[in-house]
């Protein structure tokens, strides 16, 4: 959604006059259209030259105005028109100082900030303008646009002020209708959007405003509905042959619908007919990146940067591309057989690839094998998997801007996600995220990207619970609260919970609901219906129809039965949730006061109500601590074991459990427990060394070797020991050449390392 940032700016400059579009497109920092906000004969004269395409004369005209006009606002507009943004800014500043009550100056200055992507400053200027002139419709619409860019819901308030004011300027009302139509389309409320666009078109006709953007939005609807052509495109191009937005605006709607390849086609056409459409170049570049077309992406991003160096998405994306040299590109298989492509390609940071690769590869191979069978879909292309050690790099890779709290994103055959290194709190289970995103690859590709968001997320969550690295349905407490408050949406409206959440936690609530819907369908109707629904979505059928066709019931019946399912599954828990919260608090307090018996009682009662709660403040952990303090080692072990079996993965607790099992000679279990930490905190040398040692003891030399190699990849302090361990595993695997090389590496560092010396002699004698 953040991509609206620059798209909107670009689109907002396309509506007023036909000639404006043609000429402004040639300016690197095109001056924002004023939609009738300004009225100055001298400036109009230069603007006329500009509109007619007489650029040299227009520039001369503007230059002359800068030196001859006594009006600082005119000077500022002229400087802006010739691309001298700095001077324009100074002049606006001086103009506002000289006439602080003038709302218009602040509005236009705000538009300058909008053009350079500084939305907060722009918003402040629009709001200051409204302090001086509360009914200034251009300030109102300006504030609305700034808030839309910042994803703030207050935008609606300003739009309503414009539309409710009969005296509002036509240019402002026109922009208000367009904004609303766009928002309706983003929420897939197409009927509403059509009504709004009709209003905008009428207004445009009555006020001689060229309706190009209206055409582009109508064209978007046609193409999204599957039409290969749209009359709106023809009409727009007849009016303005170089109007790139007639393709770029539909391109925007395709990418927010996750149909990235169609978006690429549309943006490509946009820049073909309007080569200096910098935003379209930028969006094309970012969408090409989503399709792993890195070289082509860079070309368009560089063009975008050359034309508009202010766009933060362009700059961020180029900076990210500069870091790609720091990543290893790893194909699986490394040497594909003839006429085959690699199945998987990893882009892993060089500092991390040695650690993450074995686990990521294992998960990917297992996932591809299972998903292919479960969803009856064979991948047509390699899966590209990118893991970023820096969260902001991952987010920039996803949406061009940093600062969004997501963990993974799938674009089709490519998915990107956070590495555990940027989550030092160890609460990030990267293996689960990996499984979730890999499921998206299948659901997106099996439906040609036509799957609704709720179903794609639902299957991914369902996959986590049923088949992921930590199995079991785990519902966060805030989602249980939402369940208790009856906040689940009807199935036909579930997409809205993702796309236009109406309260803070609705997105996570919708994730869980979608997962539960899939669980319900699989249990009540059979797993084949899950696959059947995918097939219907591929045909472009909506959720309501899909439910009817595949499940044979109406969406309303579905909702009723789903409610019953929820009641059956969670009714008891929801009925005792308040009690659980009290017990949990009581356990926390008892723990803090070191009242171990009280801790045991409160935690035990809490666990009885809600055993699936295994977050970092799980009653299991309180209970284990209390048992430990009371000296009951067996009870501590059993509690930790139950915690782990329920999906708990706090590293300290897992280490403790693994060691206890190991020392009780339950080595196989100890290995399983410790191995599960690889999905949480794989950047721990001790984890790999210990796990390797235990595996070696149990005779699993191959897995031991993997763990030892990972330990070495982490550049441990004691490299000699790391090489020795690898050599030892090599020796047991009868890989004597490798054993010799590795033991020599150990001895090169530490010539007097006795175990390594002995292994060298043994290896030599064996050979």
């Amino acid at each position, binding site marked *: 959604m953040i991509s609206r940032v620059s798209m909107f700016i670009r689109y907002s400059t396309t509506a007023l006059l036909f000639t404006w579009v043609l000429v402004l497109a040639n300016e690197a920092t095109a001056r924002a259209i004023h939609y009738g906000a300004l009225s100055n004969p001298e400036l109009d004269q230069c603007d006329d030259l500009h509109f007619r395409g007489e650029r040299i004369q227009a520039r001369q005209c503007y230059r002359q105005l800068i030196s001859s006009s006594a009006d600082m606002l005119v000077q500022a507009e002229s400087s802006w028109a010739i691309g001298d943004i700095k001077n324009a800014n100074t002049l606006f500043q001086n103009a506002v100082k000289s006439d602080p009550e003038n709302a218009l100056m602040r509005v236009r200055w705000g538009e300058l900030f909008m053009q350079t992507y500084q939305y907060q400053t722009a918003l402040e200027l629009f709001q200051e303008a409204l302090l001086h002139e509360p009914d200034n419709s251009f300030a109102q619409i300006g504030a609305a646009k700034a808030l839309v860019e910042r994803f703030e819901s207050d935008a609606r308030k300003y739009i309503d002020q414009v539309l409710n004011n009969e005296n509002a300027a036509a240019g402002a009302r026109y922009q208000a209708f367009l904004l609303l139509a766009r928002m309706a389309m983003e929420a897939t409320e197409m009927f509403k959007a059509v009504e709004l666009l009709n209003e905008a078109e009428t207004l445009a006709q009555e006020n001689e405003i060229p309706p190009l953007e209206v055409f582009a939005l109508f064209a978007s609807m046609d193409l999204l509905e599957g039409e290969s052509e749209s009359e709106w495109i023809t009409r727009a191009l007849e009016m303005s042959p170089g109007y790139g937005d007639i393709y770029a605006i539909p391109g925007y709607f395709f990418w927010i619908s996750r149909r990235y390849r169609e978006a690429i086609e549309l943006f490509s056409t946009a820049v073909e007919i309007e080569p200096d459409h910098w935003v379209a170049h930028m969006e094309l570049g970012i969408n090409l990146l989503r399709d792993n077309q890195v070289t082509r992406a860079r070309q368009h991003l560089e063009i975008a940067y050359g034309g508009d160096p202010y766009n933060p998405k362009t700059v961020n994306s180029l900076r990210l591309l500069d870091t790609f040299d720091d990543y290893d590109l790893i194909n699986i298989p490394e040497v594909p057989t003839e006429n085959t492509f690699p199945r998987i390609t990893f882009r892993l940071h060089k500092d991390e690839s040695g650690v993450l690769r074995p686990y990521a590869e294992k998960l990917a191979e297992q996932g591809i094998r299972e998903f292919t069978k479960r969803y009856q879909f064979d991948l047509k292309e390699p899966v590209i998997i990118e893991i970023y050690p820096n969260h902001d790099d991952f987010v920039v890779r996803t949406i061009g801007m940093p600062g969004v709290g997501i963990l993974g994103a799938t674009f089709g055959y490519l998915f990107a996600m956070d590495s555990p290194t940027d989550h030092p709190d160890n609460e990030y289970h990267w293996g689960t995220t990996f499984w979730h995103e890999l499921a998206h690859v299948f659901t997106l590709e099996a439906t040609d990207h036509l799957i609704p968001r709720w179903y794609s997320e639902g299957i991914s969550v369902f996959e986590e619970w049923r088949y992921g690295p930590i199995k079991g349905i785990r519902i966060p407490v805030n989602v249980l609260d939402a369940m208790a408050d009856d906040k689940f949406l009807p199935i036909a409206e579930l997409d809205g919970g993702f796309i236009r959440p109406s309260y803070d936690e609705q997105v996570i609530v919708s994730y869980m609901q979608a997962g539960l819907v899939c669980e319900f369908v699989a249990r009540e109707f059979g797993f084949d219906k899950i696959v059947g629904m995918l097939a219907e979505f591929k045909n472009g059928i909506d959720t309501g129809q899909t439910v009817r066709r595949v499940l044979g019931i109406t969406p309303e019946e579905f909702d009723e039965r789903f409610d019953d399912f929820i009641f059956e599954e969670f009714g008891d828990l929801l009925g005792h949730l308040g009690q659980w919260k009290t017990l949990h608090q009581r356990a926390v307090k008892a723990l803090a006061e070191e009242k171990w018996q009280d801790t045991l009682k409160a935690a035990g009662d809490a666990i009885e109500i809600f055993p699936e709660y295994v977050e970092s403040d799980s009653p299991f952990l309180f209970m284990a601590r209390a048992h430990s303090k009371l000296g009951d080692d067996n009870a501590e072990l059993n509690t930790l074991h139950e915690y782990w079996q329920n999906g708990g993965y706090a590293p300290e607790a897992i280490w403790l459990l693994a060691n206890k099992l190991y020392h009780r000679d339950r080595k196989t279990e100890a290995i399983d427990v410790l191995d599960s930490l690889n999905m949480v905190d794989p950047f721990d040398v001790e984890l790999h060394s210990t796990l390797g040692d235990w595996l070696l003891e149990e005779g699993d030399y191959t897995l031991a070797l993997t763990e030892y190699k990972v330990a070495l990849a982490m550049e441990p302090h*004691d*490299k*000699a020991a790391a090489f020795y361990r690898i050599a030892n595993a090599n020796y047991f695997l009868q890989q004597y050449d490798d054993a010799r090389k590795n033991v020599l590496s150990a001895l090169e560092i530490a010539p007097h390392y006795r175990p390594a010396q002995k292994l060298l002699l043994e290896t030599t004698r064996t050979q």
Partner: protein
Amino acid sequence: MSRVILSLVLMLPLMTSAELHITIIQGLDGTSDYAQQFSEQARRVNIASESVTQNPLIRYFSGEDATRESILDHFSQLASTMTHEDRIAVFLIGHGSYDGFEYKFNIPGPDITGKHIKDVMNALPAKVQLLVNTSSASGAINEQLKNEDRVVITATRNGNERLATRFGAYFFEAIENSAADINKNNAITVKEAFDYAERMVTDYFEDQGQLATEHPQLSGDYAGQFVIARLLRDRTEDENPELTKFLTERGEIDIKIEELQLKKGELLQDEFLSQLQILMIDLSTVQEKIDQISGENQE
């Protein structure tokens, strides 16, 4: 590391004939937590010192004894008794401060300043010197003490890193921890202890997700040769002639390994490995014989 091994072998006569004097100064702690930490560090370095020198050559100042007068007096006496061939190691454990002009190591009564430390070290005739200052702001004295024959370790990069440090705890942990013994020779050099502690400090701040408030520093040429702790008893003084023969042989192989490692860049990898393998097999075989004679099977 390879250069270290060669130098260690070449310096053995020097190291064994000369005396190693060790002075440990435990400064003010301020809180009971630090009192416990500093005492533990001092305990460790005292034990480690006994493994590398004779007891009378170790001097430990702590509590009310650690006054400026007594400390300066001690160094004054040392300066008059030690020789050029002797070595000196000084460990400062505690808090330090820096006001932008002068570093002070906090002890009961008047503090020791950076200038005192410099004057004391300069006055000592020992050619090879070691100063380990684990206090906060200790980096303030780096420049004034630099000298190629003097190994100087400070917990901080400069005097502006003023928060209590973690480096000391890790450094003194290293001197009794085989994990710090990178070349597995059962001896911890200054360099090995420093590397271990520096890494632990870095890991600590990374794990906490915090900006590091200390950046340990090391200067001087002999850090890799200066052994400050032995994890096992040195058997070089054993009088068994056969053992002596094998120990000599082992030393000769060590030198050949060192020479080969110096030529590594000039050789193809396979060639290097092949030659290394021959030498390592010789070394391992000799070691096996040493173990048999001495009845050891150390790992």
